[in-house]
């Protein structure tokens, strides 16, 4: 396992933005055979509540732009000093360039800036924090804008009940700066590439491009869940077993590495896979119930790449001072990671709503515009 102690970094602030359109599980009783008892059982066991979902035409880039602009405004930070922009994301706008470059443009950042994407899902925020800390601790960067987001609702058919109802769409912005004083942060990351096909969206990359021959393929499993080749698949039971095997161990090893006891951690922000998984991890690791939460899942769903940031932002009112936090996340890859960070003095911007702007270009308009661009009819 990759472990690191990284010092002299301060997390200045964190802000989450979600679309203002929510789906409530109570409005989806048709998928529970109109059986109230079954719906209530799923709510109690999985923790289903409501989740934000992007309307067609709104992407992670839009959410990230709002989160970053709001955070920098709230902090009163001059964007000129940002020398590194990282976007952790697995719902890109285009095949290339990386979406971080669209954000570099939209946010009006200077050219003296390193800009890149990191392609990860649920473990992404912890990996992003590790990377940002490493860059600052090494002296390569002094002010890092870390953006993270996913629109997981776009990876599944609404009739795929193994996937669709678990996820909510969200993005976050986190600003990290060099700190002359001590502020140690500890990280432990891991990977299991052999499990790459346990969480996968097969079509749409270069191995299996989306072409006419697959456009009408619609597969149903025994339970009636609908799947297309470009949708995501999660092998739930395998991922559950994987999670129970690696995550509690990862958290305990990190605490040991940092020389910290459970009692020295003020809050545990666990990836909100669902209520059952969060509770099982907490129980197996021995995390006191009052020091963690699964309720963010009920309010916002599993926010994939940015889920841990959503948990932190969701604590704004309940825990005005976050203190020393242990963050832990796991997922696609398969990958996992935990971090212990001191968040004293960190501005918590909470969770803002993003209303879809009017007049988003329709799909046909976009296609036509790119045709004109190709023909040289548009500059």
């Amino acid at each position, binding site marked *: 396992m990759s472990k690191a102690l990284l010092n002299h970094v301060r997390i200045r602030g964190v802000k989450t933005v979600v679309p203002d359109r929510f789906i409530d599980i109570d409005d989806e009783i048709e998928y529970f055979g109109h059986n109230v008892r079954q719906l209530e059982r799923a709510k109690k*066991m999985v923790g289903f509540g409501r989740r934000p979902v992007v309307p067609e035409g709104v992407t992670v880039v839009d959410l990230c732009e709002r989160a970053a602009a709001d955070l920098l405004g709230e902090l009163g930070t001059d964007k000129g000093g940002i020398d590194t922009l990282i976007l952790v994301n697995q719902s890109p706008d285009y095949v290339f360039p990386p979406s971080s470059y669209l954000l570099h443009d939209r946010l009006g950042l200077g050219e003296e800036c390193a800009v890149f994407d990191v392609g990860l899902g649920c473990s992404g925020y912890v990996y992003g924090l590790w990377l940002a800390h490493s860059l600052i601790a090494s002296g390569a960067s002094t002010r890092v804008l870390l953006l993270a987001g996913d629109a997981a609702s776009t990876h599944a058919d609404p009739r795929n009940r193994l996937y669709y109802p678990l996820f909510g769409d969200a993005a976050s912005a986190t600003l990290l700066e060099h700190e002359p004083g001590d502020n140690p942060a500890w990280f432990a990351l891991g990977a299991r590439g052999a499990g790459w096909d346990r969480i996968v969206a097969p079509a749409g990359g270069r191995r299996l491009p989306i072409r006419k021959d697959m456009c009408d393929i619609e597969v149903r499993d025994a339970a009636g869940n609908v799947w297309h080749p470009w949708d995501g698949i999660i092998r739930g*039971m395998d991922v559950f077993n994987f999670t129970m095997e690696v995550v509690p161990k990862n958290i305990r090893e990190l605490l040991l590495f940092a020389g910290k006891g459970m009692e020295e951690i003020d809050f545990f922000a666990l990836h909100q896979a669902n209520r*059952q998984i969060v509770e099982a991890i907490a129980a197996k690791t021995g995390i006191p119930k009052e020091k963690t939460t699964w309720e963010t899942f009920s309010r916002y769903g599993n926010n994939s790449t940015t889920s841990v940031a959503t948990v932190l932002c969701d604590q704004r009112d309940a825990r005005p001072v976050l203190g020393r936090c242990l963050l832990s996340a796991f997922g696609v890859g398969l990958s996992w990671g935990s971090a212990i960070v001191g968040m004293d003095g960190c501005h918590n911007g909470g969770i803002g709503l993003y209303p879809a702007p009017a007049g988003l270009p329709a799909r046909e308009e976009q296609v036509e515009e790119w045709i004109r661009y190709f023909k040289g009819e548009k500059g």
Partner: protein
Amino acid sequence: MTHEEFLEKFQDVLQTEEPLGMDTVLEDLVEWDSLARMATVAFLDSDFGVGATFEDFVEMRTVADVARKAGVAS
């Protein structure tokens, strides 16, 4: 833990409508879905420190089998 305590806890874990008995066959429960299997594995792990996987349900057929796996004396 007594059998009664185990049954009460396990029923809460599975959220079944009908009360469980030690001789209840898991496959006979309408609620015995993947969610229930995961809940059972998590229950064994967190409450009894017993590791189980989904393959174990080939042999764990009844509630008594789960109790035995958990180490609840019969």
